[in-house]
């Protein structure tokens, strides 16, 4: 039997963090800037934390900021369940419990150096992708062309307005947006995010492609990328699953033999060839 190991830390014990700033970005998405009360969070683009509210429970939330941003870290939290509804009521100065960062499958910040990068985001799929996008913008010379395709259901669900506006004004990032449902104040593309893929055909030949969005989106984006002959080795999917522990024990996030919490959440698509539950 295994050695007694009294010096190990409790893997389920949250550490306190203080909320510095909050901002509602649309009807459901709350932006939050936090700092750990003890030691600063060291993380990589693609990692997530378990956010804990005493009395209600924990939720796994992607870190949205880039580690190049030195002070604190940012989360974007959709109001959708018990825990997140409570988080939405918190104000600057309030505390949250944080465990993590978790996830050994992160964005390939080294491997993708020198390549074109294409981010395909659906809705709040932008949140985790933004960590790597801003990392690239802060290390801009290390990477070639940067393209972000963003599909949102309807215009009032768009968020990070000023950041998207700033990206659009820069010439070293190509942001193309679309919305599924058109309304009077939208003059841009209309249609699902896959309709944007033909527009960037030229970028795809040598690109690393990163996908994050609602479950239904992956299949269609992957079909479109297959048509564009993007090899599976250069496609990375950021997956969401139900999670309780974040440390590979509780079994909820398992997809066949992989655990999203410890093997992901970012997976190279070619590694998922024998993981039919993934997509």
């Amino acid at each position, binding site marked *: *039997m*295994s*050695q*007694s*190991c009294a010096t*190990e*830390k*409790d*893997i*389920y*014990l*949250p550490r*306190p963090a203080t909320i510095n700033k909050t901002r509602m970005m649309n009807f459901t998405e709350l932006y939050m800037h936090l700092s750990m009360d003890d030691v600063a969070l060291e993380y990589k683009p693609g990692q997530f934390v378990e956010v*804990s*509210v*005493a*009395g*209600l*429970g*924990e*939720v796994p939330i992607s870190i949205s900021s880039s580690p190049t941003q030195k002070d604190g870290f940012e989360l974007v939290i959709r109001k*959708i*369940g018990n825990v*997140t509804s409570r988080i939405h009521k918190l104000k600057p100065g309030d*505390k*949250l*419990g944080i465990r993590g960062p978790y996830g050994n499958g992160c964005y390939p910040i080294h491997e993708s150096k020198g390549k074109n990068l294409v981010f395909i985001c659906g809705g709040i799929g932008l949140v985790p992708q933004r960590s790597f996008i801003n990392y690239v913008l802060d290390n801009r010379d290390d990477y070639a062309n940067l393209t972000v395709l963003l599909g949102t259901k309807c215009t009032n669900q768009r968020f990070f307005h000023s950041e998207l506006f700033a990206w659009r004004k820069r010439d070293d990032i190509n942001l193309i947006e679309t919305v599924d449902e058109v309304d009077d104040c939208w003059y841009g593309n209309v249609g699902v995010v896959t309709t944007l893929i033909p527009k960037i055909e030229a970028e795809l030949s040598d690109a690393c492609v990163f996908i994050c969005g*609602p*479950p239904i989106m992956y299949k269609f984006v992957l079909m479109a990328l297959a048509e564009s002959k993007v090899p599976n080795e250069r496609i990375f999917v950021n997956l*969401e*699953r*139900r999670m*309780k*522990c974040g*440390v*590979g*024990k*509780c*079994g*909820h996030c*398992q*997809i*066949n*033999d992989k655990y999203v919490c*410890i093997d992901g959440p970012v997976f190279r698509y070619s590694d998922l060839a024998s993981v*039919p*539950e993934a997509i």
Partner: protein
Amino acid sequence: MSVKKLSENALVSFVDCLLSTEKVEAVQAKGDKFDFGPLESAKDLRLDYDITLLPPKKYFQPPVETLLTYETEGVYKSHYDNERFILIGVHPYDMMAINQMDKLFSQDNYDEHYMTRRNNATIIACDVETPSKNVFASSMGTATVKDGYDILLTNIGDGYVAEAATEKGRSLLSKATEAVKVSEQDLKKRQQVWDKNQEVLNNHPLKCKPSDLPKLLEKAYEHPIWEEKAKTCFSCGSCNQVCPTCYCFNVQDDVSWDLKTGERKRIWDGCLLDGFTRVAGGHEFRAKRADRFRHRLYRKAKYVPAKIGGQIACVGCGRCINACLTDIANPISIYNKLVEDIGID
């Protein structure tokens, strides 16, 4: 290693001696069945049992346990069950399951809650005397066990051979004052019990080696058997709850009546249950019963083995067969059907 012999009476006084100073949990009759529970008198101990309703995993991962206590303002404190106890009557297949759980909870991310309980336990295992109706441990290579226990008892007819395998076991066995030396003959008889159990604990013989199973399942993902069996599955999760190697859990917060303090609790969960993979917003990733049914069998014979050096995470206790309401849980009938249809190279 220290090996002694205890007569029936010597065992009773040994256990009574333990009861005078230690917390003892042991196998006892429960109606016409058996289960582990707190032992009050050595005469209640039933080492002749066939199978317990629940496996002894409940002592290391209880159905409900407190991981943390907290103040609702957000101050958290780890909570550990730190009580020493002796567990008597663990069958070899259950011991093998505990060994697997020890690996899973200690490797990668060390789970101090499980391991604290585990390190506080002294396990007195015993070889099987009465095969249960649905046992197939002989097929799984788990009819006898070589490690994990502190003491192993084997009934050889005219008493028990008691072998202490650890320091904890040796110090405990030294309290068996009526124990005598074992003879060559006793050890021979013990070997005969082992040899026999490796044959007879096999009411559902597997038609291949357990080590063939991961490879077999590689080609069985689309086999119609999953749909066929799951047609009558209630998704009740009974197979999960009684399994000695099912360890998936949920975590829930309980709050005290004054809303000031509370406990974060770990609770048994089951991959067969509807909602196991459901996320906020309602999307369920493994929504089909057949997919959940298949997932359990794949976890036992492919996914978990990959994490613990190839050992199959089904120890052949047969509890899922006993518990299943519609008689579809028998892993052997599934694996054998796959062997017939797909074959082993």
